């Protein structure tokens, strides 16, 4: 037999004949013959929808009190992506991880499909809205007849129409104002109480770090959950990179949080020692030897402060006096500054004292009215204290509450178990829950009246004076849900004395109220608008009404009231048993512990790299003493209860402390201790013992090694060495590919980046990145295209030196992944992108093995997008299937969109016109994208910065991503 290669009819010719003859046929191609598809046309095409093109709606975020504006991108009538509203002064176009994940709550598979009623002890059965509302009205009438206090409400803060409707309904039901209890677990209530005591203003100041030269955060993790994180992250980043002087951030607390990682200095105060640190700072700031031109507050306080022994303070705070003194001197020199406290990590049973001391210090330093602005708050719906929540639960348990309306909160699941919420709520004859999906409270509810998602609702939120962000539905409701304010208004209309509301229609309610505010939201002197209706229409289109805020007031400190906070804290009682300080902390992804959305659970925590589960942080020394290692289960016991939590050994925590994120485990461990002055829940000041549980947990941990092992992958720069070391790359072996038109490139400023993970969630949303679940995460099969690479130091046991590096495909000019692909599925495009063609990929994974950055992810199984979560999928991006490699594309769909638009308008692509999802979402505006071929483009300018470096540059891969090194401050002189 002859060699087949000698056949006159070769393989290619054979296929050419077969294929060519079928040129007019339809069966060619590799796709399986499709099933018959139906195309159903519109009956009447909507004016604002062009199939295949996005439609944008402006609305607002309701995930926390910050109230950022939102731009929702919709396709064919369904929301696919949430981004910030660039016109909104709070978020300025950015949106945090939780805000972006709100879209998964909209499409959550477990959402209630309609109202439910539970008769007796039986299961909940569907009921019509009319019946449910009539039931509720009847119960309210019966309860109101028994006297005040029988109808109560427990709600999340609703600073807008929703709150006004709630109050109107309760008033119509004869309820007293205190019968409406507002629950926000993370509200820094002690700061409000301190303001009332010292300044006569029971409000939270609006923090503005724009001018701040120094910032001291004592447990206030303002880059994650405290205050308005998106806004504060941007302000800090601007201060960090402004010409001249760099804003200096100090973190005080027993555990390094993400805000602590961004800080230039960490004062490892013991848990509960924060107030003594502030007292020490106050003592330095008021010392005539430090500053001669002291304020009158400082002069008045000095006699009391001078009597305090610095050694005592230092020992109680757990930090050397020298460090406190140095920080105090820095604050005196660098004005204005901002001293922020308390946050959950520092909020103990003396939280009001900490808040008050921080206010006194801010006042002495002249920060009030500058960085801490009073009189600008939008505090329309101040949360109640935990004492009021507890009083409500106590009344429920005593059977003194007949009707309890629960809106936007999950008291049975979120509150510390020690408060006994489930048992108390079970005593309420009619508990009506407005929850959108099952939580720990809904099984106790007799009526479940599912609310619309904010993306299906009308609403308004006024996070501060001069800002009114409006919510509008971006799509038709998915199920037979009804907006809570409509339900309340309709129930209110059925009462004997109907609620005083103009309408029962949410649109009318919201717009009437917004109309009343148009005048107040205009610049002073601008007068009344010529056409308020037109102004409102424009406001709806733009997402809100914004005016310059009124001038901040600098309230005078009541020095006589400050006196009682100046005494040093009681020395801690000695105790044995090796008890540790329990630190319960919120995180940027988990918030107050509610994290139950797929993206928020799948994305690993920046510092621990743990996903899907809570973890217990122990310092290496403590872990060794207890005989536990990362991944082992430990039993934590407090006076309130115990919980088994997997250990993560973390050098960023004091040896005398143990930390875990807020959530079910923390709720089991926290006792119901309250700060007696403000009534706030004491998260801190809890003693815990930790013991080996003797079992290993399957801990989903993404990190390989948390140490750099001498490679200096993430360099830092100092004033002495303003540039990171760069290798000599002048010798080239291979010719470089040409980029005739564009060379897309990115620059990431690590001095701005805070590691908040907003970019990661944005990438999941934009690029249909699948969520693979905890089992895959345990095997390291995380699919994110961008991840926060973080190093804890150089070698295990060495100095703690946390460095962050957002790692995504570097789109190398000499990409190691490209030559190893046997099927040409990955290649270098003429525009410099490292492209991955899914339909060519056969899944050899050679590319991933050859990638030095480990940014390629492999689909080990088909992704599951449980209905209706699949409605969120971006139609412009392929949903990858099993056996295919995938990676960052620089959002090529956005590049093509901008290029197409530029072509239509017959102009070149403008610099800044293309914004990948990660860059768009970044609160700190750390990411720049553009054309490196254009030397005038922003990305080219940023890449020429002297702080520039490239990841693993010595490998000669010539990445398209330039990082700007973090600035390490030398210790102040």
């Amino acid at each position, binding site marked *: 037999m002859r060699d087949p290669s000698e056949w006159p009819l070769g393989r290619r010719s054979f296929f050419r004949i077969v294929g060519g003859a079928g040129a*007019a046929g339809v069966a060619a191609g590799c796709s399986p013959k499709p099933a*018959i598809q139906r195309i159903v046309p519109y009956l*009447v095409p909507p004016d604002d929808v062009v199939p295949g093109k996005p439609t944008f709606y402006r609305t607002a975020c309701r995930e926390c009190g910050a109230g950022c504006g939102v731009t929702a991108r919709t396709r064919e009538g369904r929301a696919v992506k949430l981004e910030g509203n660039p016109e909104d002064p709070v978020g300025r176009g950015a949106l945090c991880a939780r805000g972006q994940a709100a879209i998964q709550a909209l499409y959550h598979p477990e959402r209630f499909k309609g109202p439910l009623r539970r008769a007796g002890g039986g299961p909940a059965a569907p009921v019509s809205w009319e019946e449910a509302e009539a039931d509720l009205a009847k119960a309210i009438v019966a309860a109101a007849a028994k006297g005040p206090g029988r109808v109560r409400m427990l709600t999340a803060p609703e600073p807008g129409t929703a709150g006004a409707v709630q109050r109107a309904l309760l008033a119509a039901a004869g309820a007293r104002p205190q019968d409406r209890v507002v629950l926000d677990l993370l509200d820094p209530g002690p700061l409000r109480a301190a303001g009332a005591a010292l300044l006569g203003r029971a409000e939270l100041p609006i923090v503005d770090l724009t001018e701040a030269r120094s910032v001291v955060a004592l447990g206030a993790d303002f880059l994650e959950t405290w205050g308005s994180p998106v806004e504060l992250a941007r302000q800090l980043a601007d201060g960090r990179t402004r010409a001249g002087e760099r804003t200096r951030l100090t973190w005080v607390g027993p555990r390094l949080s993400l805000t602590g990682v961004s800080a230039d200095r960490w004062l490892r105060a013991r848990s509960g020692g924060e107030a003594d640190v502030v007292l020490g700072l106050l003592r330095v700031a008021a010392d005539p030897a430090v500053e001669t031109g002291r304020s009158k507050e400082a002069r008045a306080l000095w006699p009391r402060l001078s009597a305090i022994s610095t050694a005592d303070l230092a020992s109680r705070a757990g930090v050397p006096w020298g460090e406190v003194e140095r920080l105090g001197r820095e604050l005196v020199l660098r004005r204005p500054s901002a001293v922020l406290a308390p946050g959950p990590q520092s909020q103990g049973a003396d939280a009001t004292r900490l808040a008050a001391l921080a206010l006194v210090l801010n006042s002495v330093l002249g920060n009030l009215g500058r960085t801490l602005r009073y009189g600008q708050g939008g505090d329309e719906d101040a949360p109640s204290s935990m004492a009021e929540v507890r009083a409500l639960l106590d009344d429920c348990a005593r059977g003194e509450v007949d009707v309890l309306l629960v809106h936007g909160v999950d008291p049975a699941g979120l509150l510390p178990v020690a408060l006994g919420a489930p048992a108390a709520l079970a005593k309420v004859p009619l508990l009506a829950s407005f929850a959108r999906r099952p939580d720990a409270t809904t099984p106790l509810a007799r009526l479940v009246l599912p609310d619309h998602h904010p993306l299906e609702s009308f609403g308004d939120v006024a996070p501060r004076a001069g800002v009114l962000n409006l919510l509008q539905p971006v799509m038709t409701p998915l199920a037979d849900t009804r907006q809570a304010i409509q339900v309340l208004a309709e129930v209110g209309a059925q009462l004997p004395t109907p609620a005083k509301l103009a309408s029962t229609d949410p649109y009318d309610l919201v717009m009437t109220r917004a109309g009343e505010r148009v005048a107040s939201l205009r610049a002073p002197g601008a007068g009344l608008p010529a056409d308020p209706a037109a102004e409102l229409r424009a406001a709806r289109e733009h997402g809100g009404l914004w005016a310059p805020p009124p001038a901040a007031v600098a309230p005078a400190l009541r020095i006589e009231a400050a006196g009682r906070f100046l005494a040093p804290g009681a020395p801690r009682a000695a105790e044995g048993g090796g008890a540790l300080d329990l630190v319960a902390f919120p995180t940027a992804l988990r918030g107050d512990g509610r994290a139950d959305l797929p993206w928020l659970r799948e994305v690993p925590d920046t510092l621990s790299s743990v996903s899907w589960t809570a973890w217990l942080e122990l310092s290496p020394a403590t872990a060794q003493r207890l005989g536990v290692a990362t991944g082992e289960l430990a039993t934590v016991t407090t006076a309130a209860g115990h919980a088994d939590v997997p250990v993560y050994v973390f050098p960023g925590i004091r040896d005398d402390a143990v930390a875990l994120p807020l959530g079910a485990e923390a709720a089991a461990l926290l006792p119901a201790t309250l700060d007696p002055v403000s009534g706030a829940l004491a998260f801190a000041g809890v003693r815990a013992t930790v013991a080996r549980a003797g079992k290993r947990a399957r801990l989903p941990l993404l990190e390989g090694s948390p140490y750099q092992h001498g490679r200096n992958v993430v360099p830092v720069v100092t004033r002495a060495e303003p540039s990171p070391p760069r290798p000599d790359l002048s010798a080239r072996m291979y010719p470089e590919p040409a980029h005739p038109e564009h060379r897309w490139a990115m620059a990431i400023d690590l001095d701005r980046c805070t590691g908040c993970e907003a970019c990661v969630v944005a990438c999941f949303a934009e690029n249909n990145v699948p969520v693979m679940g905890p089992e895959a995460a345990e095997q390291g099969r995380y699919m994110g295209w961008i991840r926060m690479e973080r190093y804890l130091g150089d070698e295990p046991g060495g100095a703690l030196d946390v460095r962050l590096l957002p790692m995504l495909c570097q789109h190398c000019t000499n990409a190691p992944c490209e030559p190893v692909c046997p099927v040409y599925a990955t290649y270098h495009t003429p525009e410099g992108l490292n492209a991955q063609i899914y339909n060519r990929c056969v899944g050899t994974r050679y590319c991933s093995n050859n990638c030095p950055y480990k940014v390629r992810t492999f689909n080990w199984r088909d992704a599951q997008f449980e209905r209706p979560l699949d409605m969120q999928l971006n139609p412009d991006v392929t*949903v990858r299937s099993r056996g295919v490699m995938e990676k960052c594309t620089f959002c090529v769909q956005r590049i093509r969109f901008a290029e*197409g638009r530029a072509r239509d308008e017959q102009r070149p692509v403008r610099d800044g016109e293309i914004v990948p999802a990660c860059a768009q979402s970044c609160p700190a505006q750390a990411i720049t994208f553009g054309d490196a071929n254009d030397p005038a483009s922003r990305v080219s300018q940023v890449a020429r910065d002297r702080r520039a470096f490239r990841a693993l540059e010595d490998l000669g891969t010539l990445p398209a991503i330039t990082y700007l090194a973090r600035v390490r401050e030398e210790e102040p002189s």
Partner: protein
Amino acid sequence: MIPLRALAVAAALAAVRVLAAEPAGPAQPIRFSHKVHATDATIGCTSCHVYAERSTVAGIPSMARCFGCHKFVKEDPANPALDRELKALGPLLREGKPIEWTRVHRLPDHVFFTHERHVRSGMRCQDCHGPVEQMEVVRQVAPLTMGWCLECHHRKQREQAGRARLTDCVTCHK
């Protein structure tokens, strides 16, 4: 021997494909004729497929658009067969029931084709869809395979220098 047999197999396979090459279009729920609309009534393509010039999809005309004409063109007494069908259309439109068409042209999910770019570059609809205006029942004329797309893209690239994107994989696959 062997080459001959291979040739025979290839020829047989080719014959099968040629026989299958001119299928009628798929059955549609109503007897809609593009010939009547596009040729006899001289209605332009984008009068009904309104999004072709500005979006990825050309768009199937909405029922409201059908009704725009057919509230006047509702009978044809001279042609009993047509009259019957026109009269059946009336109730369908009045009841607000959309016609569920059977898809004729389909691209795999990993292809991102856009009508907008092709129409705006001066291509005629018939270049890909064939003489639809002469078809009673629409059928797919072009194979819509990647090789077939690239024939044109390669030719354009030869004609116009500097159009690297025309044959870049990520132009259509992303």
